[in-house]
């Protein structure tokens, strides 16, 4: 059940990417077309879609990072490195990269 939920999140992620490509294509058509597109994007339905896509992407990412210790198994001598030490740096890297992207996006 949870597995199917996770699989379904990819539909939202894919739909968002298609939407984003459409947005870029409007940008290429010039300022006027892009502004008109941004106006349409502000509709309630599309806002709701973006919130849903964001939640789906978050769920997808968190469940993925939680699985990393199963895939990356590091041994220190006879002991396995604890799962938290494997997943932790992944979360940290995710946070740092997200902050950098936010900084680039909000800088202007």
């Amino acid at each position, binding site marked *: 059940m949870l*597995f199917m939920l996770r*699989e379904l999140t990819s539909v939202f992620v894919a739909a968002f990417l298609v939407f984003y490509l459409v947005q870029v294509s409007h940008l290429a058509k010039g300022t006027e077309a892009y502004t008109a597109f941004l106006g349409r994007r502000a509709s309630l339905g599309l806002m709701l879609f973006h919130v849903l896509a964001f939640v789906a992407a978050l769920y997808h990412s968190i469940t993925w990072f939680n*699985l990393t210790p*199963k*895939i*990356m*198994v590091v*041994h220190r*001598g*006879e*002991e*396995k490195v604890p799962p938290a030490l494997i997943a932790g740096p992944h979360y940290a890297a995710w946070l740092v990269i997200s902050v950098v992207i936010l900084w680039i996006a909000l800088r202007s």
Partner: protein
Amino acid sequence: MAEPSMTLEVFRYRPEVEQEPTFQSYTVPYREDWVVLDALNYLKDQVDGTLSYRWSCRMGVCGSCGMMVNGTPKLTCAAFLKDYYPAPIRVEPLANFPVERDLVINMDDFMHKLREIKPWIIREQEKPVTEGEYLQSPAELARYKQFSMGINCMLCYAACPVYGMTQDFLGPAAIALAHRYNLDSRDQGQALRKDVVFSHEAIWECTFVGECSVVCPKDVDPAGAIQQEKVAGAIDLVKSVLMPWGSR
């Protein structure tokens, strides 16, 4: 006071008697220290000698008493009645396998797949016995030990939705065992296993549902093993593209 009892709904299939499988309800004594296998043994001894099922050790080692208990793959020697009482318990043969008779499944497919992955230590050159054993440190043992704990009970195959749909799938236990040998410091046979293990019918068929690891009675974590083999397979693929002259 009457002894407490409970109901066991047992899957029956006797090819010479019935075309279609049926369920037969039996009443068994309820005892706190009984497991489902004890109840089946009671039925076989006292009530209905025609009931067929596999079992041997009664202690979670032999791997032969795996069945579906209320729809979940379990070793019946480790499934206590008290965890279900007073509700009835439904006992069925392991899912995803053809049924031979009653609770007995046909395991030919699994046995064939086990052989496919060459589950033994392979050396490029065997050294003579006089030179002694292949030595291994405790740290080297720790790398693969978890994946060597499988008991071939096939619960993971019964839990795997991918195997349920695609019988060609090499499956959790076989890949976990291949992984065990690939991780063994004494083994040099990865190249001989990779045609089977790194194929579409093996690691790449797995969608990482993870149910195999949930039901595993020995905490082997076959799902983890498969994903780790995917990493090895991906590295092998990249290597073969970048360095086609390499031997592996």
